[in-house]
């Protein structure tokens, strides 16, 4: 087991290196000269070519590419991503808090998605093809086809303005989490619950269920066993959901003025703040890789049969 875990985590390392190199290259591809951009951000009124050359040397931009990459990587690991082109402040001072805020939203949403998917999946599987099942699937269908900002706008108008139950935006209180989480959960749970549902339906047709019934097990006990097996299938799926969520909160954060990564990245793009964009890409891609590796290890823990695939 340990060997499996170690091997799995180790294969993540070269992947991380490649990703970091690609993220580093982003800045090279940008149409803006980094030295010039930093000078303008610092408000230097007269940007001459001597000043640019000076700044270039200062930032180490005249060294060979690989050496620049090496030092960039070294400082990135220490969370030093350079200075923002817009505010001139360290990138991490913007990215850090934003990451935490998005992480919080993601965690709460992930929990909601898992609960909702499992609940709906079981509910519908047990009433296969009955009216509640069809209604739920119909509703899910519609809600996942709706652009999330549209859904968000109506939800805010209904729950926040008309019924005055929840705040319209911001991250002030526990209540602020409700609407953004609802929008995110609806989108994902609408898809995931069907997987649980079909997995459970498939499970109920399995042989062991027949044997179980023949041996006198209660319906409840059988359902629980089928659910347990379905969940096993679902674990990697939910595992993938979290990092995907982490990077997909952009629109929701915009509508709800959530001070997270999504908002920050859009502002950075519209503000041509390349160091922030770069750090954002690196952060998310690395999280994705690490998360995947960890979740595969966890799956391996739960289901020894999967370990052979490595």
């Amino acid at each position, binding site marked *: 087991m340990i060997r499996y875990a170690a091997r799995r985590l180790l294969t993540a390392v070269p992947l991380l290196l490649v990703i970091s190199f690609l993220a580093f290259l982003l800045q090279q591809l940008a149409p803006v000269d980094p030295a010039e951009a930093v000078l303008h951000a610092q408000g230097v009124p007269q940007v001459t070519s001597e000043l640019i050359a000076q700044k270039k040397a200062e930032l180490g931009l005249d060294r060979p590419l690989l050496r620049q990459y090496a030092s960039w990587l070294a400082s990135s690991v220490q969370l030093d991503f350079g200075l923002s082109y*817009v505010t001139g402040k360290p990138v991490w001072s913007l990215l850090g808090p934003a990451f935490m805020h998005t992480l919080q939203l993601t965690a709460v949403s992930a929990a909601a998605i898992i609960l909702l998917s499992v609940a709906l999946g079981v509910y519908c599987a047990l009433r296969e093809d009955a009216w509640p099942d069809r*209604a739920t699937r119909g*509703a899910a269908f*519609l809600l996942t086809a709706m652009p999330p900002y549209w859904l968000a706008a109506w939800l805010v108008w209904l729950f926040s*303005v008309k019924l005055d139950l929840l705040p319209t935006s*911001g991250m002030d209180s526990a209540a602020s989490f409700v609407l953004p989480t609802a929008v995110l959960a609806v989108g994902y749970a609408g898809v995931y619950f069907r997987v649980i549902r079909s997995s459970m339906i498939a499970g109920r047709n399995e042989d062991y269920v027949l044997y179980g019934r023949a041996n006198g097990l209660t319906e409840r006990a059988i359902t629980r066993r089928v659910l347990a097996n379905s969940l096993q299938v679902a674990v990697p799926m939910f595992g993938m959901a979290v990092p995907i969520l982490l990077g997909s909160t952009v629109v929701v954060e915009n*509508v709800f003025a959530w*001070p997270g990564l999504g908002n920050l990245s859009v502002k950075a793009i519209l503000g041509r703040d390349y160091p922030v964009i770069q750090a954002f890409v690196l952060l998310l891609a690395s999280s994705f890789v690490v998360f995947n590796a960890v979740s595969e290890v966890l799956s391996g823990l739960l289901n020894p049969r999967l370990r052979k695939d490595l």
Partner: protein
Amino acid sequence: MKHSRNALSAIFILFLIFASGCSGSGNEPAAEAAKQGQAREIIYASSKDINDMNPHLYSGSMPAQGMIYESLVEKTEDGIKPLLAESWDISEDGMSYTFHLRHGVTFHDGSPFNAEAVKVNIDAVQANAERHAWIKLSTKIKEVRATDEYTVQLLLDEPYYPTLLELSMTRPYVFLSPKDFINGQTKDGVAGYDGTGPYRLADQKPEQYAVFEANESYWGGAPQVKRITAKVLPSGETTLLALQKGEVNFIFTDDRGADGVDVEAMQSLVDSGRYQLLRSKPMNTKMIAANSSSTGPVHERAVRLALWHAVDRETIAGQILHGAESPADSLFSGNVEYADIPLAKRGYDLKHAAELLEDAGWKLENGGETRVKNGRQLALKLYYDAASSSQKTEAELIQSAAKTIGMKLELIGEQSSSVAARRASGDYDLLFNQTWGLAYDPQSTVSAFTAESSYARTTGGIEGVEELYAKIGKVTGTRDEEKRKALYKEILTTVHDEAVFIPITHGSMAVLAPNDLEGVAFKQTQFELPFELMHFK
């Protein structure tokens, strides 16, 4: 089959959602009722965070800085009036200003405001003089002397008539407690934000909100509104919903001229009976800056003139802005000092615009939509503030008019900071901008024609630019009123002829405030609001 039932259910639920959604808009929220009896506060929405509040640098929010810091003097409708300086004397030769400071003023951290504090502040600004090159006063200051505890002497290299005016600006010549300096300087950051103003910064969560509390020991008397919160909300519907619900109860035009919600939305809030809308007198001119030093087609005067004729100011002012702003035909309106001069009026005339382009050699080639000259297309990029819905609509209107005369405009929306960066670096053809407004027009805006961080690129490519810059350098030192008038006339006429600033409308500040807030007024600057004068009924 399963699918058809799914579809039916889907349609039914869709119907339900829309039935509930279409039943009218905006009801009275319960929030307001709860607020009765509690100390009322102002909560305003801004699309930008207040950022770094260092008063000697430029990334902070100006309205916020205006609440916390103060300058020696203030520009009012009746001219320069005392603020932190009670009185002043100007020497015969105009090169020495002696200020007698107000007694008994303290910074928010308790430190006394005195001549020494003034001296270290101005010295700190001057230590970073390059950064302040846009404000010409910084290039004229020779020395600051604290002659006794409440007297300060400011010595200049040469006479500079806008001295008092520039000292009255929101930044950089405002005062921070010397205890907040780092190593005796402010240019590398400050340890705190203690000013002398009516409000002090109590709490700040970056990108979320900032809270200002009344300075109870303010020399002008403690303000009546005890708490002001600035919430960071994207403009548009998020701000509108917050206003409808009462989570935010105040918005005003930001320092780049963008409004939190559009005119119609503001009107609907007023109609709901909870809000009042106030508009200041016209304060500035909103225009398009055309980069004459670009390598693209915009460096040609004919192209700029043609674009001028393609802007339908009447429609923009009347329809897009609902009459809130008036059409502008010149960079400075006639009531701005020194700007009451005869300038050629260029109306909305697409035919004439097409002729101008034709004569300049831009021709339409076999059925093409865009004019071509020397193998190059007449294609220009116009940058606008992505947070301003009115700018986008104006841009689209101009784009469609330009299309009819064979000019292709590509519209690109960016953050206002990025547009400002482009202005400084010259990486643009056209961008939306506005003059600096009442207190600064015309002298500071005109001075800025030569400043790299402002309009140097915009004006850099015109004919006779050297002479223009020379005149601009001279005009501020000229003590003879007649000579000054003549110089400004020449400067403004040149800039008008070269069409590097294409005026659109005369803008003003708009404030949407709760109905029970009184004392809402405007200052002589579009960058600050006198919150200390406001009080709830």
